[in-house]
């Protein structure tokens, strides 16, 4: 029996379907590719609230903060052109920029600023909630903050994205943000939470129109997918590549890697009150067991990122001349023996019949953390320490701190969430401990030095105080530094003028040009 097969028909239908869909979008891509800057990054946008996922909108230059930071990390004018404090530091006044307009056409008024900043101050997670604000007042063309205690860090705190100023019309009756109406050079045209945002140059922008008129942002969760987008010209700027992806980009044409050292350190947070880890010798032994250079080379593909002390050299003021942290497994074993640990079964040290076993928790948000954790696990096994690695939600770290069950945590701590590292350093070394800093550890010298720095004073005294803090931490190791962190992005050759801002306050899209 012979008859025309349905098979060819089926194949034809499928082929037609595919071609159709491919063509349909092919033309769309072509149109988009010409004048749209396509950005891909790992972080999804789940909320429009500035305190939640606001960073993406300041980075895309949709919303602005009163103060911002320049490429060196110094404070720079944002919506405020200048600021000053009273002699006792309890009253700060910020002069607003003239003729700034929200994307809905309404003018930026001091009242709108007060409203936005007060909302940020009411969110516990915002650094502004830590500032002892008594009152915020609109005052002619400026905004005045009255504090109950002097606080020199206020302008730096106001660089944080949670303090971005949105138009009053951006909020609904319950105070939820329904639309991101900012003052920046770009305005939102299309928004599809959680994965995509499109913006275009705003006609309301008070400055010069940017060369790149359209921008699209897409959140892509898997790092290998992002690397593919970079090498196959499916995105112009791709953030957050893993080492393997970076190698792919370096081997590809038409795309290059840009990077800058970030004020971020990957470190082991230690419970200094733990029966095992309370002993400083054990902490030093753990530190000496790590071959940081090999770890940095294998996991981060860059030997220079091996941390020799707590803060990276890019934070010059906080990077004194110290004896670098190195690997010395013999000394590590000696220290552990001194601390009472002796040979046990299965290569794990023992004391009073109990094995030297610890749990390290870390989180997968940054792909290098679980990778480094397995490297640390292997390194510690060599000196007889059994380490359980638990990759979990990042929030287990503050939770473990609160109930005291945390032993070790591998975290990537950003030391300039606001532009001045002092704000974060003060928090990290707070005597009562900090969720992303020390745990059950304090040192009077460090506390005094931080208080002195917060109170201001001469530069030479400040330098001395900074060194005291870093040196003490270096010797007692309440936080064991592992590696520094390099921010990187793959950038297409279609784009010129890309600058990596180490603080990532904005992606500086207005500086970009199309390659001719």
């Amino acid at each position, binding site marked *: 029996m012979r*008859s*025309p*097969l*349905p*098979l060819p*028909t*089926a*194949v034809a*239908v*499928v082929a037609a*379907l*595919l071609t*159709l*869909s*491919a063509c*349909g*979008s*092919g033309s769309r*891509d072509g149109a988009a590719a010409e004048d749209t800057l396509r950005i891909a990054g790992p*972080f999804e946008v*789940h*909320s429009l609230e500035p305190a*939640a996922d606001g*960073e993406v909108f300041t980075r895309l230059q949709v919303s602005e903060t009163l103060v911002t930071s320049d490429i060196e990390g110094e404070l720079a004018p944002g919506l405020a052109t200048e600021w000053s404090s009273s002699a006792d530091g309890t009253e700060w006044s910020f002069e607003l920029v003239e003729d700034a307009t929200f994307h809905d056409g309404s003018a930026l008024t001091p009242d709108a600023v007060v409203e936005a900043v007060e909302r940020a101050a009411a*969110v*516990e*997670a915002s650094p502004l*909630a830590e500032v002892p604000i008594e009152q915020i007042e609109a005052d002619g063309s400026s905004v005045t903050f009255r504090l109950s205690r002097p606080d020199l860090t206020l302008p730096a705190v106001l660089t944080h994205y*949670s303090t971005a100023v949105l138009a009053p019309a951006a909020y609904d009756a319950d105070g939820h943000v329904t639309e991101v109406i900012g003052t920046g050079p770009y305005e939102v045209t299309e928004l*599809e*939470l*959680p*994965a*995509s945002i499109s913006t275009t140059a705003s006609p309301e922008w008070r400055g010069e129109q940017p060369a790149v008129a359209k921008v699209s942002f*897409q*959140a*892509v*969760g*898997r790092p290998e*997918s992002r690397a*593919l*987008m970079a*090498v*196959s*010209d*499916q995105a112009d700027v791709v953030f957050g590549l893993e080492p393997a992806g970076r190698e792919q980009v370096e081997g590809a044409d038409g795309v290059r890697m840009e990077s800058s050292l970030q004020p971020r350190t990957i470190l082991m947070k230690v419970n200094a009150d733990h029966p095992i880890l309370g002993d400083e010798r054990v902490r030093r032994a753990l530190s000496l067991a790590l071959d940081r250079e090999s770890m940095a080379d294998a996991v981060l593909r860059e030997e220079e990122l091996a941390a020799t002390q707590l803060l990276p050299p890019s934070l010059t003021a906080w990077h004194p001349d110290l004896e670098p942290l190195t690997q010395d497994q013999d000394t590590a074993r000696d220290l552990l023996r001194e601390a009472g640990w002796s040979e046990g079964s299965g290569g794990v040290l023992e004391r009073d019949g109990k094995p030297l076993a610890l749990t390290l928790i870390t989180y997968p948000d940054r792909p290098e953390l679980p990778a480094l954790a397995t490297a640390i696990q292997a390194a510690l096994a060599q000196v007889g320490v059994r380490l359980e690695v638990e990759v*979990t*939600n*990042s*929030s*287990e*770290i*503050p*939770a473990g*701190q*609160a109930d005291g069950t945390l032993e070790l945590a591998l975290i990537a701590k*950003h030391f300039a*969430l606001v532009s001045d590292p002092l704000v974060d350093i003060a928090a990290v070394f707070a005597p009562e401990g*900090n*969720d992303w800093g020390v745990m059950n550890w304090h040192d009077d010298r460090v506390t005094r030095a931080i208080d002195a720095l917060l109170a201001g004073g001469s530069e030479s005294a400040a330098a001395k105080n900074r060194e005291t803090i870093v040196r003490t931490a270096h010797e007692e190791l309440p936080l064991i530094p592992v590696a520094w962190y390099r921010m990187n992005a793959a950038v297409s050759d279609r784009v010129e003028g890309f600058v990596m801002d180490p603080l990532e306050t904005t992606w500086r899209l207005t500086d970009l040009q199309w390659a001719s």
Partner: protein
Amino acid sequence: MTPRGAAYAGVLARRAAQGVGVAGLVSVLCFLIVHRLPGDAAYRIAAGRYGYDLVDEEAAASVRAELGLDRPAWQQLGDWVLDLVQLDLGRSLVTSRPVAEEVGYYLVGTLQLAAVALVLAFVLGAGMGVAAARRPGGLVDRLATGWVASVRAVPPFLLGLMLVVVFSAQLGLLPAVGHGDAASLVLPALTLGPGLSGLVARITRDAVVEVRASEYVQFAHTKGLAERWVVLRHVVRNAAVVLVPYLGVQAVILIEGVVVVESLFAWQGLGHALVHAVFWRDVPVLQATALVLALLIVVVNTAVDVLVLWLDPRPRRLEATR
């Protein structure tokens, strides 16, 4: 009521009862399990909201107070059920957006992908099955058997990775990830479709072989109708009676299976929502997503029952398998 009408009503009543039962079970189960999950929910939710750099004890405490997480569990569950009865799914604990809006968005993504993949699987599988059935044991049949075994042996994520490498990385024809435009739908659909086509092909083949061998097709032959007409009229219609239930099952597998493909291709669907909701302890979103998934399965099964009844209205025992 006609017997046929009674049969339809019976199916609908039985499925409706199942739907209500499952909805209750799933939402209560989700709630209870999430409450027993290790870790402090307030911290999880705060991390989901503000990003991990900014979560501390105060932020968690304010989240706990705002959402009333320290109330007894039965009170929280009771509130949710009361709201549900009024068709209010509440707001997401993490994003503060209405749950119905969020889950609806993900549902559309899932349905889009599932529909395209199902069509692809059906066209590919049925075509191959009918072709293979023309000569059982022939070359086409053996090739089809090989295909069925291969697609069954390869997990979708592996197929997806291979497709990405070939079509996106090497040839640069299609976007590797994305959501929204037609081109970004091609690779996810191609990843899911072939996996399902194997089973469709196999069932179609067997059904067609059987139906063809049966008397009335032989009878149609002797009547002298063109053979193509025989295939279309009798074989396809009768094979469909067997095929439709399987297609229903395929749709169910598909709805669940998309999570992998969603992750690989950054496609926004229910699987994505489910994984995030568990991770962040976003109970309302989790309950709603699970509810939607379960109801979707019930709806698909109902549609299958009704369709089978329509295709083949002979009386039968209903409770055999599904």
